[in-house]
């Protein structure tokens, strides 16, 4: 039934760089897989929220159901870092998620589902340098649901702030501590950007389009993006 349109339940181009299977073997395995990778989660989304949405793709009457959920964690801080695996009992349920859940919102973020080879020890941890997912390493936008700026940007941010904080550590008080310097000049001090870590939301759906476009453009960066 797929002559007119492409089904949504096709696996993406993602290739796990640490899985020791070739592409054709991978395709064969994905053709039977009952595990999904779920991406673009908020760091604050709970397993129960995930359960609620994904149970709608379950089919208990057919012997299915949600087997387990494996939350993706930052390998340093052991806190959720925005992805998870959902494992069902049947392949059909995983396909249903690809069709009906992928690209819809959970916790007010558009999530992405992909068929997955299945959980292996260690895969629950982010593979980014900073402990989280690689995609959060170089991210340039401010995403309050995923810890604000990307990890690299955050590092820059922290660096900048430290500089700012240290700069005037030698400031003195009393008369003469501040130079006159001539008229009309005003000390501007350092501007600070507060790094909000408060729970936040993705600003707009439109972000999805941009993200998806970026995704297909950087196809060979896929596994970097994903894990």
């Amino acid at each position: 039934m797929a002559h007119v349109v492409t089904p949504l339940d096709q696996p993406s181009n993602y290739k796990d760089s640490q899985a020791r299977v070739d592409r054709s073997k991978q395709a064969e395995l994905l053709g039977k897989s009952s595990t999904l990778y779920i991406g673009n989660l908020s760091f604050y989304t709970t397993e129960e929220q995930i359960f609620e949405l994904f149970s709608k793709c379950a089919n208990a009457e057919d012997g299915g159901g949600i087997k387990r959920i494996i939350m993706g964690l930052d390998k340093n801080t052991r806190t959720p870092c925005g992805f998870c695996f959902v494992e069902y009992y049947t392949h059909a349920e995983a396909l249903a998620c690809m069709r009906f859940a992928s690209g819809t919102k959970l916790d007010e973020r558009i999530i992405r589902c992909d068929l997955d080879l299945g959980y292996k020890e260690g895969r629950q941890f982010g593979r980014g340098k900073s402990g989280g997912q690689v995609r959060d390493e170089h991210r340039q936008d401010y995403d309050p649901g995923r810890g604000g700026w990307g990890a690299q940007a955050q590092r820059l941010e922290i660096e900048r702030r430290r500089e700012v904080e240290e700069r005037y550590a030698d400031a003195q008080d009393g008369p003469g501590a501040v130079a006159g310097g001539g008229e009309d000049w005003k000390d501007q001090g350092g501007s600070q950007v507060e790094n909000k870590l408060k729970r936040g939301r993705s600003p707009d759906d439109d972000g999805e389009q941009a993200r998806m476009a970026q995704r297909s453009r950087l196809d060979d960066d896929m596994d970097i993006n994903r894990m």
Partner: protein
Amino acid sequence: MSYRYGGNRKRYRDDYEDRRREVIETPEDRLKTAIIKFGEVDVVEELPRLEQQIRDFQPLNIPFLSEALRISVTEQPYKIPFYATLLRNLYNTPDSIHENTPVLGRLILEDFWKGFQAYLDKVAWRETRLCIQFFAHLTVAGLISPESMVALLQSFVAVLDEFGVSHGRAKKAAQAAGEGLIIAGPVLKAHSPSSVNDLITAMHTYSESTTNAKWLVALSSRASNEIIIPENAHEVLDSLLNALDILNAADFAGTVDCIPQPYLKDGATTFDVPKYDLPSVLVPPEIIEVEGITSEAGSDEGRIKREEWPEYYFRVFSNDVSPDPTTPAGYVIRSNLVDTLDIFEINRKESARLLLEYPKWNLPGTFKPKPGSTIEHEPVVGKDWQLDSTVIETILGAYLVLPQSSQKPIYYISLITELCKLSPSTAGPAVGKSIRKLYSALAESLDVEVARRFAEWFAVHMSNFGFQWVWKEWVPDLLLSPQHPKRAFIRRVVELEIRLAYHERILKTLPPEMEDPEAYVISEQAPGAAFEYEDPSHPHHEAAQTVLNLFRGRANAEDVITHLDTLKSMLEASDEGHMDVDSLVRSIAVQSLLNIGSRSFSHLLNGIERYLALLRSLASGGVSSSGGQGNAKAKSDILTAVASFWRRNRQMVGIVFDKLMQYQIVDPTDVVGWTFVNGSIVGGVREPGMPLNLSVFEWDLLKGALDKANGRVIIARRKIATLRKEDDDARARAKAKQGMEVDGEIKPDETDNVENPALETALKASESLVKEQKAALSRTLEGFISCLAPPEGGSNPNPNSRSVIDAAAWNNRATWDRDDWNAWETWGWYRQFVREYAPYLRKYTNTLETVSFSRFEGVNDPAADLLRKLWHIATGQE
């Protein structure tokens, strides 16, 4: 880092290989694509071009062309009239000199028929029906003889007269014939008025015989012994018949107003070649599933057949906004849209796009132009409908069909989301109006299952659109009884929204009147755990702490069991010896374990898995004794402890019950039994000791248990089928090998008689799972009966289960209070139980009936009568 570099290189090579493996598009592929995509830009412009492209294509390959056409017709039903035009044009013989050259169009049509026959042999109903539509168009275009078309339709109507025909089969056959008749009617009526009248009469006769079944699925939960079908209900076959009656009354002059006939625009309907006579067909008989043989068939994997019911569609809008589906134009539009929905289930985004493009394929002026559209059409009087409203209404209608929708419910939900994203300014308001319409229907006996799905859609939809709903407009309804369907709906939706988001987020969206705890809309606290022994002043706080500490220290299960034994003796020795110490110890143990696992679903699973031995021991009754199938009281205690611990979070109750069944600590039957006795004390507005109210929460628990029991049987059947197949293959191989060794000793065929031990185990497992399935169904039926027709002196019977089914009671519903609404809702879930699980219940009809209904023999009890009547209809006895 170097690995990245290397990794990259490897990936490049990989992708390169992928690209190389890509299939190169052949000229045939290109033509096929051109045929499938026909008309997408401008059908009038493209027609001569495509015709030429087909004529020019060398070498001539008729099966290829007819296959492309078959795909086009069966996967794009809205384009069928235009494909008929294409084929008609391929009948033109531009080169009249060569009279002997066969007509291309005719060759394609003859080959197309073979494909139709293949669909029919597979009993692929939708494809068969869409091909019939195509043939009907060709009949009007003059390509097919009317007598053979009438014969084709007759063979489908003949299905309705088959002995014991299932409703699903009859419905589909009638739709196939009826839709063909709407299209070909003008020609067929002129050809043979009596045959046309006979076809319609036969369909009427069938439809009239299904009144009882209709009553069970008519979207209304009016509990009463009277068989009343609501006047505004729209059953699909009745709508079709009504449309046919309208058309037939005017000898199908109306067809032209509801069906595009582009093939009549230019060109004659007479050709040099004689009209094609469709060969006669016989609709193949139904595949009958015989109990026990199913597993041997293997291929269907024991899937249960559904769709045995009349189909009612919920109507949202008035006839000037969306078409009345009982009129010819309205029926055709809905049929087209529903087919589109079903076909494009594989890609909801494309589905949404195609639905919004639908007006392009219908007659001009049918729908209002899109705002800002440049195409101008004179609106047609009586039409000029709103597209988005029509599409949303159709999707909701299909979503709310009882007892189950044909596609997964979440498909319809995410399809509506896509429509709202594609066309927010028009689809959004249509969604809002639909919600209001359904909400007001809640007060007019909207079926409880329809209400359940409405709430589910509402919550998921809102989750996709920032939880923005104007709750304020429902504030006045807070004056209704807390059990009134509208208030139950509000509560349910808020609960589901919280599950998808979190408590404060949803609280923020509600008006102050609804935040008030007295309003019973939202709980004061976020739904957390409620560890009974948390409070240091609790008499068993200390005892629970010792157990909790063992769990925290990851003590092994045996040590915990030993400790619980000690605890038990200690409690027995103390002055609390008079109470049920076994229950107390179970409660302490289970709640402490849940407390350890309360941080997340994964923590729960870890906790259960680490202490499986302990849980099994608890479930087996005596705290320390082990083994056995468990003890009903002990298992009920475990479930009670779970419900108590998660009383503020009903989602978790469902999850824990599910996993306790999965790990075989409790059985589905235990959950069913527990639910009927204890269910509604969990987080509801009912106080303990009050009559049982089977609300949607309890229904979810029952459904979870029944589906688990049924699903296990299916898994077991599949396993047997696989093992049998492996066995057969192994034997075949062994035989082949033996045959090869001609010179070797010929051993007697021993291997044949030895049963595969794995198969034997699987057969035994299946046997006990079937037993459990039957027990779960039986327990559910019993539970409903003891709720709804309680015997004298039954435990907390609902006093009003009999009075609410009185014919006059419904009209007094303004005075209904808690017990009335509870009874009404419980009746509603009983209806859903018998119709949703009918395929399973039918397997055990006789046993279950004897067990559950014989006690009412000769008893004059309206509740018993209604229970039995619904049961009989569902099991196909009435």
